[in-house]
């Protein structure tokens, strides 16, 4: 098997890795500080899985004979620029719900690209399966919050975040290296 991947492909894999690590660090900090007893376990599990995903991308890059690039632009940093600093768990959970859906959708699209290296295809496939748990526990918490406090708050926040997501995703796709990769594989 030819392990060679393009510079653009290495960038996109490194971007995935950085975004997973950023998510893991964020959830780890919240799991560490939260006062909400019933969230301590799912937040910790979520953090652990995000970091594990960061490792799986690192391993995939390693298996391709390469070293991950230092990437500081992540899904999270781009959301932050557009949405502002999240100020509560409610905002973090809504943001994560929107972001995780986008990531699953994006990974599924990436999986459809022709001539995908088997190492990358397997990693993408494993990620899509794992992200389902993240969507599930967060949805349950948001539904419970809405049941108690009315649906308006979550609905408004989700509407705003979907708008933010559209802007951020389009901006990320305009990144020259990601654009270059997509062009190469279309």
């Amino acid at each position: 098997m030819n392990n060679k991947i393009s510079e653009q492909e290495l960038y996109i894999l490194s971007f995935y890795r950085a975004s997973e690590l950023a998510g893991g660090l964020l959830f780890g900090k919240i799991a560490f500080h939260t006062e909400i007893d019933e969230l301590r376990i799912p937040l910790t599990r979520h953090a652990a899985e995000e970091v594990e995903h960061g490792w799986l991308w690192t391993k995939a890059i390693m298996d391709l004979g390469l070293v991950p690039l230092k990437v500081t632009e992540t899904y999270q940093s781009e959301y932050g620029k557009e949405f502002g600093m999240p100020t509560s768990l409610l905002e973090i959970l809504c943001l994560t719900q929107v972001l995780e859906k986008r990531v699953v959708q994006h990974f599924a699209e990436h999986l459809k690209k022709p001539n995908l290296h088997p190492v990358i295809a397997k990693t993408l496939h494993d990620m899509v399966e794992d992200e389902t748990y993240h969507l599930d526990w967060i949805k349950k918490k948001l539904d419970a919050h809405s049941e108690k406090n009315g649906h308006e708050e979550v609905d408004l926040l989700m509407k705003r975040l979907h708008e933010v997501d559209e802007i951020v995703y389009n901006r990320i796709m305009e990144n020259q290296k990601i654009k270059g990769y997509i062009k190469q594989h279309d």
Partner: protein
Amino acid sequence: MIEQEILKIIKDSFPSKNTEINLDTPLEEIIYDSMDFIELIAILSSKYKLDTDPKKLNKIKNIKDISDYIIDNSKTKNSDQRLNSF
């Protein structure tokens, strides 16, 4: 004095970043990204039992603003609105 308490919490929580902080220290000299900000809010909302108010929090520019925010919002935690904090 709540201001001194907040200064100590910030010094203890972000030790490598602020040797000489005071009430006028801008927020960006204490925290560098959204993760630091979330951590700071999580620590303070836990310590002072407050629900967070996104509109007010996004206007914070320095430690004095943080202190004023806490004085205005402490003990606002509502058990039915638990996700509105950290």
